[in-house]
């Protein structure tokens, strides 16, 4: 069974802090994704990566960056956290041909910025 593990289930951070959200998958998936999930807005893509050291902006990249130094790990970085970044963050991974198989999601990190 594919496992996508997000390091924290809940996080509380202060405005202006640098925040790291970690995601690790154990099935040798090429693709990894970061979404944020907000009520009424669904899932919105922040950044994604198709390979080590590669990254692409999603629909809402502002205020975020990512790092993928190893195939199994994809980190989301909030350079200077703000209250409007309070949200549920979901990591997902897939084989390159997501077209057929879809994603596997982590359990999410609920981030509160105060």
């Amino acid at each position, binding site marked *: 069974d594919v496992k996508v593990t997000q390091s924290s289930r809940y996080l509380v951070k202060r405005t202006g802090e640098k925040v790291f959200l970690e995601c690790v998958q154990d099935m040798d998936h090429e693709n990894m994704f970061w*979404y944020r999930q907000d009520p*009424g807005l*669904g899932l919105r893509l922040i950044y994604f990566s198709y390979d080590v050291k590669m990254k692409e902006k999603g629909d809402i990249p502002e205020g975020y960056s990512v790092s993928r130094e190893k195939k199994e790990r994809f980190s989301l970085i909030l350079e200077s956290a703000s209250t409007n970044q309070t949200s549920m963050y979901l990591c997902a991974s897939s084989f390159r041909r997501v077209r057929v198989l879809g994603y596997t999601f982590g359990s999410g990190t609920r981030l509160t910025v105060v």
Partner: protein
Amino acid sequence: AQRVTQPEKLLSVFKGAPVELKCNYSYSGSPELFWYVQYSRQRLQLLLRHISRESIKGFTADLNKGETSFHLKKPFAQEEDSAMYYCALSINSGGSNYKLTFGKGTLLTVNP
């Protein structure tokens, strides 16, 4: 522009009644569509994909290219079907790479 529309934010039915969760899409390429489900306090998980033409937990979904729809149906709803449901469209983002774009979700409540 590629888009997935789920017109209902909330849907409430009684146990044993039929349920249909609507999904419409716009995409210039050949569409690949999915339904994901998130039960309370659980992770988002794949429910079904149109390419498999499968029935999972009694749910089915048929791709209608003419109406650009991929509605999710179940003839007799159960209380355990209460969850958030997301429709998703696979979009080519260059070469052989694809990503999913999601609708805003429909919260289904099945009342006893």
